[in-house]
């Protein structure tokens, strides 16, 4: 079979191709703002053994700036880490570099992965390549936008509650959230450790599959990682779908029906499933995610690295000033929430209760996958939204995580794919599969891709990208 990287192979070793590429990135990113740092030279320097035969040789890829790459910044989109240069490289990135891949740049994100628009970045604004007035989604907005606009072959993101799938849906690319533990988290800056996973944004199913196959696997540096094995076999051709009023925008609703019709026509049986716990996904998610975040972000105090205030008299003042001046308001909000739900006296009713409900959510999916081989559902109730008053406020954005958070809570793999372009904007749908069933996702979505390939945003059509 043809390598999914063919169009990008040795891209950076050919000086003419490289110049064309770098010029394009410069021009395109002036409008999109996907990258916080772009340096192909430095990326090439990380490839120790330039073997032109390697499957990723010379292939440029981008990494969300919440994943460590030695010698590059690791800002997490935050003022508190604005000047931090990473002294080490994440396991997933090391594996890509070992195959010859060239890490060309770090992409923008919502600060510490907290948000659905990438507007919560303290360090830059990322626009949706389909409409500069709209957000790219988040929190991996920079990675999705870079791939959508053809600025990288693929990009790594992180998905804690939908942060790869939602921006991928907003930008019209594929977005994989692997099974929890399938990809080492070593080097992924923790937002919520029991939910976080490194994911992939790409313009084709096969490239997504190839990248996942490279980065997956048990890692001795991440004791929550698992080998996973060959995964479950396809058990049937039943696709679970959601019934009732899902509160979707009309364009999203149309796209959902379109994908259902497609799979029905392909001979799949669509079966409405009852996810009894669905109403609890968002509160359970935010309770657990913020609780873990409150501890994960405690290390940022300006003592050993990162932002330090101009003046402080003692360690307490130093720490408080560094955090108060260094974190943005959404991060502070989530730290406060997470601290609160863990406090003695409140922990039982919030954190402990959420943990129990999480078990029920897990059991709910076990039951659903007893009947259906896959579950098909929307990614987000809206398409990429506008900035300002007509967009969604932070609270509405949280409520809109109701379709994506389930996969994180249950630790299951899920993948969003471009299902339609409605009113000039892409719409994404997602499949969920049983644990380590990534191959089932690829196989199912490949059928759709064969008929509806990855769309290309009108103003970003470099010759090297595929799609329609």
């Amino acid at each position, binding site marked *: 079979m043809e390598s999914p990287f063919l169009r990008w192979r040795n891209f950076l070793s050919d000086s003419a191709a490289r110049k064309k590429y770098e010029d394009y990135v410069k021009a395109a990113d002036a409008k999109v703002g996907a990258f916080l740092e772009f340096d192909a030279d430095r990326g090439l320097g990380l490839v120790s053994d330039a073997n032109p035969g390697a499957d990723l040789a010379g292939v440029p890829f981008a990494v969300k700036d919440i994943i460590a790459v030695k010698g590059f910044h690791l800002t997490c989109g935050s003022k508190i880490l604005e000047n931090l240069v990473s002294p080490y490289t994440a396991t997933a990135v090391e594996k890509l570099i070992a195959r010859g891949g060239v890490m060309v740049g770090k992409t923008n994100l919502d600060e510490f992965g907290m948000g659905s628009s990438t507007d919560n970045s303290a360090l830059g604004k990322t626009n949706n390549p389909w409409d500069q007035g709209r957000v790219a989604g988040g929190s991996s907005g920079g990675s999705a936008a870079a791939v959508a606009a053809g600025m990288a072959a693929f990009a790594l993101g992180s998905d804690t509650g939908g942060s790869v799938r939602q921006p991928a849906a907003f930008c019209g690319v594929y977005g994989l959230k692997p099974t929890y533990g399938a990809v080492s988290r070593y080097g992924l800056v923790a937002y919520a450790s029991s939910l976080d996973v490194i994911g992939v944004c790409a313009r084709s199913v096969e490239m997504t599959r190839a990248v996942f196959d490279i980065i997956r696997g048990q890692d001795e540096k991440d004791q929550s990682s698992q080998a996973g094995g060959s995964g479950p076999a396809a058990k049937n051709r039943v696709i679970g779908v959601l019934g009732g009023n899902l509160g979707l925008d009309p364009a999203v609703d149309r796209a959902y029906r379109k994908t259902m019709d497609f799979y029905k026509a392909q001979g799949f049986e669509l079966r409405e499933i009852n996810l009894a716990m669905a109403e609890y996904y968002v509160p359970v998610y935010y309770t657990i995610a913020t609780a873990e975040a409150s501890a994960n972000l405690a290390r940022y105090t*300006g003592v050993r690295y990162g932002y330090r205030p101009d003046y402080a008299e003692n360690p307490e003042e130093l720490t408080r000033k560094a955090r108060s001046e260094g974190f943005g308001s959404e991060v502070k909000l989530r730290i406060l929430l997470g601290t609160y739900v863990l406090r003695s006296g409140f922990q039982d009713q919030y954190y402990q209760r959420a943990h129990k409900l999480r078990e029920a959510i897990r059991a709910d999916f076990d039951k659903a996958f007893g009947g259906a081989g896959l579950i098909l559902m929307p990614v987000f109730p809206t398409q990429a939204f506008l900035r300002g008053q007509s967009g969604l406020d932070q609270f509405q954005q949280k409520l809109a995580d109701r379709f994506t958070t389930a996969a994180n809570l249950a630790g299951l793999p899920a993948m969003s794919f471009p299902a339609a372009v409605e009113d000039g904007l892409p719409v994404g749908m997602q499949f969920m599969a049983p644990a380590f069933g990534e191959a089932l996702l690829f196989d199912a979505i490949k059928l759709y891709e064969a008929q509806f390939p990855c769309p290309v945003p009108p103003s970003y059509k470099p010759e090297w990208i595929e799609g329609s």
Partner: protein
Amino acid sequence: MIHSMDVSELKITAELANLDLTGEDLASLGNEVEKILDYFSSMMEADTAGLAAGKAGSAANRLRPDVRTPGDADALLENAPELEGRFIVIPNVL
């Protein structure tokens, strides 16, 4: 319905989190926190009897061998905001 966070609870929480909240933050974050906690209260209606808090399906007993793997300590010190010899320095006016 459980009680939402009042200002004194918010202040205690901020102190535990090592955050200084200015008057403005206190008001806006306080409102937002309250809104979300109200929303969280839907969890209180769920029947959790018979449910145990589990742990994400990770395997047990992952261990690494007791082997020294020297790191590059000097590179880490380069990121420190202030040094005195090899010590990292923080202000402490008594």
